[in-house]
């Protein structure tokens, strides 16, 4: 008698839960649609599998104007405080070795005042102490083996089919694991949305045929953007890798960044 009662109990609970789930499932679909309505018709015609976006940086062309960092904050509504950046510019000053003749080069001083969004004031280091100096723009390296997408516990960090590492800010739980995992320091937790945030290559622009905001305003062509699956003959990123020797940041970590740099110095991390 006891076993029959138990079987009936299990059967009862099983059927009730199945019925409840079937009833509530369409409500879940509607809830997702209401919370996240798809916007314009044009996004409906964009097929991510037909594109493969790349950004490459010619560091030797960068003049440190910081227009890219400023445009990014405007375009993406990044909090204006100096501790949240999707992209920034660094200035490297390599000093001469001075009297110490055993060293070929002196110490390296790096700065990035407010990420460079107001440009760079002239360095306090006197010119005669400077051996070399240059600017390096920094952004999300869109890694192919990205530690940030690997470590997200819920699936809010992912690489889109068109090669961009994105954040699902409506699903992110704000645990900060991805922020800690990024070796390039390109992620942060947005204090207002309380979700993770980073450079998205202005996904909302490139899916409409526009350039990322930073590429749009760069005056010297230090930031180069293109579509590997583009049919047009002149592809700037393909031309870049044909003409230049390229490097990536922190290659020894095995993250396989898809952002290539030309003209880096050994001091750039």
């Amino acid at each position, binding site marked *: 008698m006891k076993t029959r009662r138990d079987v009936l109990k299990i059967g009862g609970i099983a059927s009730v839960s199945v019925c409840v789930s079937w009833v509530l499932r369409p409500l879940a679909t509607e809830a997702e649609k209401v919370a996240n309505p798809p916007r314009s018709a044009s996004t409906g015609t964009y097929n991510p599998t037909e594109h493969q976006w790349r950004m490459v940086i010619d560091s030797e062309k960068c003049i440190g104007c910081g227009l890219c960092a400023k445009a990014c904050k405007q375009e993406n509504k990044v909090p204006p*405080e*100096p*501790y*949240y*950046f999707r992209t*920034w510019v*660094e200035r490297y000053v390599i000093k001469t070795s001075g009297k110490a003749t055993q060293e070929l080069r002196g110490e390296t*001083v*790096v*700065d*990035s005042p*407010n*990420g460079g969004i107001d440009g760079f004031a002239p360095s306090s280091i006197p010119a005669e102490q400077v051996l070399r100096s240059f600017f390096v723009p*920094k952004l999300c390296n869109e890694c192919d083996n990205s*530690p940030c997408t*690997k*470590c*997200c*516990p*819920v*699936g809010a960090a992912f690489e889109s089919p068109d090669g961009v590492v994105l954040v699902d800010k409506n*699903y*992110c*739980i*704000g*645990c*900060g*694991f991805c*922020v*800690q*995992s*990024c*070796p*390039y*320091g*390109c*992620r*942060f*937790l947005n*204090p207002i*949305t*309380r*979700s993770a945030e980073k450079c998205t290559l202005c996904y909302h622009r490139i899916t409409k045929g526009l350039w990322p905001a930073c590429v749009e305003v760069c005056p010297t062509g230090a930031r180069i953007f293109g579509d590997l699956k583009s049919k047009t003959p002149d592809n700037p990123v393909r031309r870049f890798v044909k003409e230049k020797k390229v490097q990536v940041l922190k290659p020894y*970590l*095995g993250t396989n960044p898809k952002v290539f740099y030309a003209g880096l110095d050994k001091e750039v*991390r």
Partner: protein
Amino acid sequence: MSLTVSESLAEALKHVQGYIYPNDLNLWWGALVVLYPYITGLVAGAFILASLVRVFHVKALEPTYRFSLLTALAFLLVAPLPLLFHLGHPERCYEVLMTPHLSSPMAVFGFVYAWYLMAVLLLELWFDYRKNFVEWAESDPNILRRFLYRVMTLGVTDVSERSLQIDNRLGQTITVVGIPSAFLLHGYVGFIFGSIKANPWWGTVLMPIIFIFSAMVSGIALMGLLYQTVSKLRKAPISMDCVDAITQCLFFAMILDSALEALDWIHRLYEAEESIDVLVLLAAGKLFYSFLLIQVLAGTLAPLVLLAVTIIFSNRLSNGLRRVLNLVSCLLVLVGVFAMRWNVVIGGQLFSKSLRGFTTYKLGLIGNEGLLMALALMILPFIILGVLVFIFRPWGRKT
């Protein structure tokens, strides 16, 4: 007056040393993330002590068996709270159970926690207490407590000799399964830190092992402290066999733990990788007080010496003195292990990933990641433990 987050960051910006990546100013994991491994470490350690009695038949520790399990349960119930509170979106926490991204060590939290709580701790307690529940469901004078005990029998009232034998065997199996489960519960936290190759302070192979061993050490120390304190409160006699056994277990666990931590440092200094300069600056500079003084000197070397003295000269020291040395060592160890968690979590974020500079961290008073919240979360398990002792009566009923 406590500063807002933005004000404290603006203040921190003024104290930056060297060059930090702009996003590295903020510490994303604060006091709450320091607390979580500390609490689960205490759980794992208390459980290991209990399993020494059940599986390895260390009779001297018998007086602490049921109490260790209850302590582990009290701390385990509080453990998810610091994690929940530190999330940007705690209301979405269910996602970890619904769509766990299995390449992430953090994703296993929900399942490991549920397994450890239900399949290990609660089950082991149930098998040990089942007979008592059946008894107390009849004999307890209070009607509410009688109802509570009846619910806790889960409707199984068979307390025949054969049934109790089955309970014993199943309890034994659960404890054996529980030992690797306890390692998994705390080890995965160490794995989270150890797997972050972006951070050279965290990303080392030894990290999960060091976490597990320091967890065991902290759990044993907690039980040593609680046993003496609670016995005094209950005006019950303190078994010197038990105190001496705890002294020995703590000493040997500490030898293992300090050997591993020392190995980590020796290896780092010898290999001298790219990050060694900034890490040495970190350990000797920003972490001078919390690492060198508190964790190493007061939290490791001092208790090792005290415990060694207690063991070597045990027949020449009076009972009272051995109890005091045990108590002091346990306190020092508990402080030292907390400092270790602090140095790992906070220390790892004080230097930038540029390896060229440092930011600062100031523990606030109020707010989510403040001192008051941390204290509240540390006191809560003791309150829960009081309730559990009231229900489970590990030392039998007062006649």
